[in-house]
């Protein structure tokens, strides 16, 4: 038996959780097929609508359909990754109300690591695959070559987007650990992120652009990274991509801090 508290022990537990999740989700193939169909419809249908809107005018907010495809793809990919690995952050409030943290806190593991690795949601693959297709199409339409530098920019941008989403969900929903309520506004945040990451921020009034850039930095999920990828010079692109990653790391750290602090206030009647 591996010593508790070590990284390899935490990894073992995470892998075990992933295996159990895979087994349990494969027990309901119709459920998975249903979700695959719905998400395919949602993202490909959404992209089709976006294309029709862009073609009906002369692009949207100065962005042509090629750039919009890249932007949309970046947003969907980071969303898909969050749905696969971090969907539990959406349901912190439900876990608090249902007393599910009792078990997590009793285990001889770091509570945050145990929480964050407890769920692998295979439904998220149905978000990720259309996202990857649209992103690939966007990269090709925008003529972005597959060089090592560009690949690095893309990976850093996606990672930044994932961490920003994770940090925002974690910070907002951890409030439930104090308030003991399901009412944290998680769905509202999802809607805001969807709107703020799939369309150019330039379409919004200045107040909202400022809000999305400096207060709730949703613009850094895909809008600013897409601008970075489209910029002709690496001198401009690199700092912007790194800014996205930096903000993501800072927000995730904030989320972990709020979550850990909140756990000290957690109380339940058990389950």
């Amino acid at each position, binding site marked *: 038996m591996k010593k508790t508290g070590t990284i390899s022990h935490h990894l073992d537990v995470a892998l075990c959780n992933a295996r159990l999740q895979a087994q349990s989700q494969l027990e309901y193939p119709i459920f998975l097929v*249903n979700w695959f169909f719905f998400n395919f419809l949602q993202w490909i249908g959404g992209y089709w609508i976006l294309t029709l809107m862009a073609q009906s005018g*002369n692009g949207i907010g100065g962005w042509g359909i090629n750039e919009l495809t890249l932007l949309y793809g970046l947003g969907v990919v980071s969303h898909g990754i969050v749905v696969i690995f971090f969907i539990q952050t959406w349901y912190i409030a439900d876990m608090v109300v249902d007393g599910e943290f009792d078990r997590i806190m009793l285990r001889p593991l770091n509570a945050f690591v145990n929480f964050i690795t407890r769920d692998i949601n295979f439904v998220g693959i149905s978000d990720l695959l259309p996202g990857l297709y649209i992103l690939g199409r966007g990269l090709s339409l925008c003529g972005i070559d597959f060089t090592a530098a560009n690949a690095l920019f893309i990976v850093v941008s996606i990672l930044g987007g994932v961490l920003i989403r994770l940090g925002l969900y974690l910070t907002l929903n951890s409030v439930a650990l104090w308030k003991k309520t399901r009412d944290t506004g998680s769905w*509202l945040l999802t809607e805001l992120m969807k709107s703020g990451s799939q369309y150019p921020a330039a379409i919004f009034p200045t107040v909202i652009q400022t809000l999305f850039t400096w207060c709730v930095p949703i613009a850094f999920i895909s809008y600013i990274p897409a601008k970075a990828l489209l910029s002709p010079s690496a001198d401009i692109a690199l700092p912007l991509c790194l800014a996205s990653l930096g903000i993501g790391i800072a927000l995730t750290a904030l989320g972990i801090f709020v979550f850990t602090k909140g756990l000290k206030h957690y109380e339940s009647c058990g389950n």
Partner: protein
Amino acid sequence: MTKPAAKSNAKAYLYQIKLQLVSHLAYRYGLVVALLTNSILLFVNVFLWKAIYAGSGSARIAGFDSNMMLTYVIVSNLIGSLLHPGVEYNVRNKVKSGAIAMDLMKPFNPPLSWLASDVGRSMATCVTRLLPMLVLSVCFIQAPLPASATAAALFIPSFILSYFLVWTISLLTSLIAFMAMELGNVSLVKDALILILSGGYLPLTLFGPTFFKVSAFLPFKYIYHLPLTIYVGTTGPEEALFGMAIQAVWILVFILLFAFAWKRIIRRVLVQGG
């Protein structure tokens, strides 16, 4: 049915409407989140179209000027809050819990009682979502005025028919719960299909001539596109009346399909629990 029995049935349905109205008004947090979510969608759509018109260099897109398009988007969002019937979830929950047995034993028509529930829910939605969104639109976007008094007069019956059309489609979908004991996300898929194919997001004229021609033979066009284009004035009175006749035909088709399926399904209802 005798007159007193009919009167007592009507009372039961009215009570159901009242019950839904009161219970939906009780969940204040849910109402605020739903209102904010709908408002975000509305404002994002408005900003999108404003940006498209600003960049297009053309005053009209697919026959709509900027004001007409914004009115289309606003009214689509307003009526959209009413065009999501809860009948599928209601029936799914009843089938899962076994409460459907009670519905079948009570001295009223179950589908009519489900309709009464949805009407009550929609009345609550009018107060909690539609009216606040209308006020927000008037204050921050524009007053979504109809093209003319005739357009307004024709819009109302057309929208009522849309409501029943989407409700009968949902009623038919709810029958899956009897066969599979679970609906999964079939309702989400159905709602997404309806929104895309019915012109809930965009006027169907933007989808191209072939799609528009094909859509005339499907029921979806008559859910959003018809009432909205009547409202903004791109569908004239004669065409509107013809469209409403088609709406009524589709409703009848779905009711007949439901009646046919209901007779067979009801014989093999499996009740657990309850």
